[in-house]
């Protein structure tokens, strides 16, 4: 019987399997950041253990780092607790080593899920883990990538393996093509709207279909990034020419004869025609409109043409109460047209949408226009120092600044507001990030998830607009 891409990735990494299906899975790449690693390194030290293969580790500081004041150096991290966490990572890498470390202020520093692929540190056929749920991003390269907890970070450091069980196979196909102004972010939100935030629980999801094949690597990363918001630890896209072209010439990509050998191997990383999936979901690309979330879970999402849903029409009492609670938190009334929702802040960034293509899309919308008077802050936070440099080379920073956007230094920033960038209670934000949970962008803050183009258009208009009609 045929095997899925996930079956192949799984089979090629099993070191040992128990009778109940629990397996030791070999890990090729271990990405490390400052928030979920200190306790793991401490555990290693307390037990007197050494890392198994420190050359698998690529590390950076991204969650706590400020997006302004870099000229002040490390002193720019004003919060002493954040500073200690960043310093602790540096100390741990100094003690144990790493294949690469991109510390705060390095020009290659950035969000771990942006810099891994950018450096060619994420390669097809790998298993990739990181103490961060959005590790699913790397599945865009035909690898098995998922988030792990801190105990697992320690376990991988000590053994190069993960104790895990095989997940189920789910295939999400998007046929046809996407309409103008509709992006990978809208596809991701539409899928989550359809299957729910637990729809992919226990599954590895492969995204297929012509609309997916037509996506750039940036788009595929956005899509796989959001797999976790559908409950799936891992999302993936099979390798094709788009993947291979993206990887050629990256700093850690293979070279010379090894490149040819690698490409030949990578081309086999796709599901067999007769492979069986446990779950199948099908969407039509042309049916997907730009999406806007209205509630406090990514599944609370509608088309930009729609209105805020009415809980009274929901029959399931647990769901209805959830909707009522979300509307109260979000300060919204049922049936309000999405395009009448006024905003206070706009955030363009995060591991979901901070790559060069995202910034180009946002700049194209903003060019020659001004951020609306009711928008207190509209900020653009590039995913990495290299994305920032590329954007500046293309003059995107100038477009943003002239339109009234703030142009910041790279990092996770207001996606989770661990640094100084955050919403104040009651503030409403159009955000290109991945989670609209209560308090995610700051206690009491209200988040609406959208694509970069939609966020930029919302910043200019002061409220949501349908970017397909943007002139």
């Amino acid at each position: 019987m045929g095997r899925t891409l996930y079956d192949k990735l799984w089979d090629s990494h099993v070191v040992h399997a128990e009778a109940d299906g629990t397996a030791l899975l070999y890990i090729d790449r271990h990405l490390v950041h400052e928030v979920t690693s200190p306790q793991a390194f401490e555990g290693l030290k307390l037990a007197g253990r050494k890392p198994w293969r420190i050359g698998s580790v690529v590390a950076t500081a991204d969650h706590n780092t400020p997006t302004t004041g870099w000229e002040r150096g490390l002193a720019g991290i004003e919060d002493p607790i954040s500073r200690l966490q960043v310093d602790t990572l540096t100390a741990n890498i100094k003690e144990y080593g790493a294949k690469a470390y991109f510390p705060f202020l390095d020009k290659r520093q950035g969000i771990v899920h942006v810099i891994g692929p950018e450096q060619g540190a994420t390669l097809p056929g790998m298993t990739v883990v990181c103490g961060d749920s959005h590790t699913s991003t790397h599945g865009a390269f035909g690898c098995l990538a998922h988030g792990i907890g801190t105990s697992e970070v320690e376990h991988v450091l000590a053994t190069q393996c993960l104790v895990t069980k095989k997940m189920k196979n789910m295939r999400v196909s998007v046929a046809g093509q996407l309409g103008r102004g509709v992006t990978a972010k809208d596809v991701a939100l539409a899928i989550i709207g359809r299957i729910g935030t637990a729809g992919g629980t226990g599954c590895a999801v492969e995204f297929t279909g012509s609309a997916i094949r037509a996506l750039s690597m940036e788009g595929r990363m956005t899509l796989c990034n959001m797999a976790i918001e559908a409950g799936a630890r891992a999302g993936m896209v099979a390798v094709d020419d788009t993947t291979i072209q993206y990887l050629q010439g990256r700093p850690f990509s293979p070279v010379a004869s090894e490149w040819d050998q690698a490409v030949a191997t990578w081309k086999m990383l796709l599901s067999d025609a007769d492979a069986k999936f446990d779950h199948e979901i099908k969407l039509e690309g042309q049916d997907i409109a730009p999406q806007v979330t209205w509630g406090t879970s990514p599944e609370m999402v509608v088309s930009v043409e729609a209105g805020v849903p009415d809980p009274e029409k929901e029959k399931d009492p647990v769901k209805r109460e959830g909707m009522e609670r979300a509307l109260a938190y979000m300060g919204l009334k049922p049936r309000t047209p999405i395009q009448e929702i006024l905003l206070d802040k706009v955030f363009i960034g995060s591991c979901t949408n901070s790559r060069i293509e995202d910034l180009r899309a946002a700049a194209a919308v903003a060019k020659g226009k001004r951020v609306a008077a009711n928008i207190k802050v509209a900020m653009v936070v590039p995913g990495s120092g290299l994305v920032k440099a590329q954007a500046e080379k293309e003059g995107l920073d100038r477009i943003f600044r002239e339109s009234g956007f703030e142009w910041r230094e790279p990092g996770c920033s207001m996606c989770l507001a661990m640094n100084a960038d955050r919403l104040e209670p009651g503030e409403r934000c159009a955000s290109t990030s991945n989670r609209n949970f209560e308090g995610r962008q700051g206690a009491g803050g209200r988040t609406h998830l959208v694509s970069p183009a939609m966020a930029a258009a919302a910043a200019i208009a002061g409220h949501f607009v349908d970017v397909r009609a943007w002139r």
Partner: protein
Amino acid sequence: MEKFTVLNALVAPLDRANVDTDAIIPKQFLKSIKRSGYGPNLFDAWRYLDIGQPGMNDAKRPLNPDFILNQSRYQGAEILLVRKNFGCGSSREHAPWALQQYGFKCVIGPSYGDIFFNNSFKNGFLPVVLSEAEVDGLFYDCALPGFRLVVDLERQTVATTDGSKSYKFDIDASRRNSLLNGLDEIDLTLRHADEIRAFEARRREQLPWLFR
């Protein structure tokens, strides 16, 4: 790791679906480099009326009287009853740490976020899966003041203290064994060190670029 065998404890119900790990332990408390000290900030945004920050004296903060865990009848609860998809969202292991350090030893619900579910086992914190109907019934029973349940990992049952109701739950044999005996997972894995080395050597030979 702490052992888990039998737990006879007071139950607190948290009646909302999709409780995410940001709600369980908000991000400002993730700046700590320690494994302990998260209990006072469990469900911080729901539990207190002010906005919590690291370093505050939590004992002096105003409690939200409407939040279920602040009600006197649930003080000392060690079992948390939850709805579907509990622990969805971020991979932060601080979530099970916070639940555990607050005093919970076990959570009972119909489904969990995958990473949270995994993280729980690594800390001797047991996430029990029962059917939606069974969980519904327990939420109903929980209206009774002082409602307790007995979770028996050896027998894989959740039962009322008088034995009138008993539900069977599934758990992987290896996870169950680790919890019952409080085994260190890294030690267990390192028993296979030779296999890992052999696997790695083969891989290095076949796919050398992965080891550059």
